[in-house]
């Protein structure tokens, strides 16, 4: 691809002041094509403040949306603005933006503190300021006690939190999280969700993507649904929940002893069915997903079940999408 010399990219620092009159994120009729494939088609929206969930199946265009915001790729048509600035041309707005990439790879050889401190200095902080800031954000995500350990030794959930801490350096106005809950165990999920909710309470603009509706529901009520590169809905999750409640949902739990777990779970009123499709896996069926999901961690912890994963299969999102796209 030929270089596009239109990027300006002055080295701005933490003193960069965002334009308060412009929306934090603004997409104006943005499309992105890869060859003949349309990754995003005519996306328009504007956001300021609060937590917004970006929901979509894998390949719906969530990551493309975020890459456009982060100036990694250039829109094929339309305009992307962060604080009124074009992020492809100017990196200055990143002084007020934190980004949690989807990628698994990290600098495993660094300690968490080292990693955050090094990248905090790119905001123009001195070594001491950066270290202070790194300690603050690591404490904020609950890694204060392990910050001197190598990232390579961290669990998936801790690594995700390191990435979040990296994004929170310099107290950004806008925080973008690409699938932050993917692959995390239940405890890590809960703590990451708490962090995101806390950021929302602090008045930050947070964008968080997921392909699992219930996860997003637990974080925020404001939801954007992407499907096949198009924006299907921008709205409140209550409406979506009502639609959803007409369908039974499944929760899949990977654990050591599914039979014992089934015995404890059956007491929950809202559970409509249980099945063990294969060893180490328990499927719970319910029409009150939120209630069951809220009660689950307590049961698991109280009876010390060894659970490695809780998943909500895509079926429910798929049915919503079918509904929204005018299917059955």
């Amino acid at each position, binding site marked *: *691809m*030929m*270089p*596009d*010399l239109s*990027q*300006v*990219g*002055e*080295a*701005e*620092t933490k*003193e*960069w002041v965002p334009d308060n009159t412009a929306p934090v994120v603004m997409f104006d009729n943005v499309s992105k094509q*890869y060859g003949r494939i349309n990754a995003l088609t005519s996306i328009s929206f504007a956001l300021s403040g609060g937590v917004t969930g970006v929901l979509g199946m894998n390949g719906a265009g969530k990551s493309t949306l975020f*890459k456009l915001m*982060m*100036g*990694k*790729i*250039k829109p094929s048509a339309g305009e992307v603005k962060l604080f009124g600035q074009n992020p492809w041309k100017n*990196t*200055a*707005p*990143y*002084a007020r*933006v*934190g*980004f949690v*990439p989807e*990628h*698994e*790879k*990290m*600098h495993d*050889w*660094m300690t968490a503190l080292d990693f955050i401190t*090094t*990248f905090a*200095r*790119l*905001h*123009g*902080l*001195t*070594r001491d300021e*950066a270290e202070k800031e790194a300690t603050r954000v690591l404490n904020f995500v609950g890694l204060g006690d392990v910050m001197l350990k190598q990232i390579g030794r961290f669990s998936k959930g801790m690594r995700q939190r390191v990435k979040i801490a*990296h*994004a929170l350096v310099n107290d950004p106005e806008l925080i973008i999280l690409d699938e932050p809950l993917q692959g995390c165990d239940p405890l890590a999920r809960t703590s990451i969700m708490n962090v995101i909710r806390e950021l929302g309470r602090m008045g930050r603009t947070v964008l968080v993507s997921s392909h699992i509706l219930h996860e997003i529901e637990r974080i925020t009520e404001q939801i954007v649904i992407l499907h096949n590169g198009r924006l299907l809905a921008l709205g409140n999750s209550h409406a979506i929940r009502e639609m959803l409640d007409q369908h039974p949902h499944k929760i899949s739990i990977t654990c050591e002893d599914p039979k014992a777990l089934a015995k404890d779970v059956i007491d929950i009123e809202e559970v409509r069915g249980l099945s063990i499709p294969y060893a180490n896996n328990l499927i719970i069926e319910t029409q009150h997903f939120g209630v069951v999901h809220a009660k689950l961690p307590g049961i698991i912890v109280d009876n010390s079940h060894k659970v490695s994963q809780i998943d909500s299969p895509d079926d429910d999102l798929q049915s919503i999408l079918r509904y929204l796209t005018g299917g059955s």
Partner: protein
Amino acid sequence: MMSEKMNSVWSKLDRKATAIAEFTMRQYRTRISTWVVLGVGLGSMLLVALFYADAMNTQIEAIDNDQDSYDWDGDGYPTGQEVIHGTDPYNSNSYPIGIEPDPREKWINEDDFNWDNASFAQISKVGYDDDGDCRREGQLVSQSQKDNNGDSIPCNIVLIYSNYSQVLIISSDGNVDEDPDDEKYAKEALHRAFILGVGKMGIVYLLGIFLPLFLATGLIRDEMTNGTMHFMIAKPIARGEILVYRMLGYLGIVWPFLIGLCLLMSLLTGFMGPSESFFRLSDLAIWFTICIAAMLVTLVYGAIFSTFGILWKQGVVLAIILAAWELGMAFVSVLAGGDSAIQKFSVIGWGLMIVDAGAAMTWPDMAMFIEMGEWVGKQSCDRSTLGDECGPLIGNEPLRFFSSGHGLGVTNWVAALIASLVLIFQAAAAWFIGQSLFKGKEMDD
């Protein structure tokens, strides 16, 4: 005042620059491949140095270049001794009476060079007949025989440099400086040839191209492939800056290595090389220019190769193609020296020019030194009767091979300066192209 200073552009730049440069250096240090590359580089240079140490500690066989140590007629007197006493070296009944015969060794290496005031710039008269076989008096010798070159001075050598044909004409009166000290010449020549050979081909070319090939090609590319670049470009920093600061980190590893290596090699050759004193202090100048050339060359290749890495996932392929071209240009430079213009379309051509300028500054007598070794060889071949091995003095040929002029037609200092500036310009141009490509690169994986 203080806060003004803290907020100056420089201090901001400095924070980002040192953060990324330090990060890059630490990243290098954690990779085994870095240590393997540097280790192999150091090891191979030390291996070559072993050959040098061996050569410096080996006795060079003294050759009787003028073949006057033989006693042809078997009367016990070597030819040289008979000649200066005017007796017939081919008649066993003719020998100097009342004089003890000399041992044979006395007539080997008995007439060393006396070329101290030799010059290419003007006609110069050099040489002194140490063994007296030209200066001897007697009925068989006429004044005109002692002055073959007709400069009215007996027993000397006239040097005339033809600017037109660029050939040095050496016109000797015969039997002057005709049997020099082979060992002295060979050690000096081999010493210089080693420094130039290992400096030009080993350090400036091989290390100059392989260190960047392994260490700089992935400077940006590896981060892009790993997906770790996302952390860096999500910060308020321009991509062009990232490239510069990553380069700084790369130089932070490569430059100290090169400086250390050159220092080590200069100590080795300084202590082991032929010298009146215990250390060849004057050679530090050539090692200094080798070091500067290697540093600049790794800077340029580093900028080019990291740009190749940005351009294409398989950027190393482009780097290897360039390395092949550069190898050709290195040979052109070594063989043709400054006489070839094509080497100017390369990086290595300019790098080696710095070394050539340094060699000319360190050893101003270099060209003459090579000429005299060859001249003696030719003389001894002309004289050879027994089909003995003859030819340039030992060490002359390797030295001639690795030695060349910078060919810029200016003084050595200016040549070194020009070549350095050209290299810095090349690096800046490569960086400019690299950062343009990087800016326009869509990070999509």
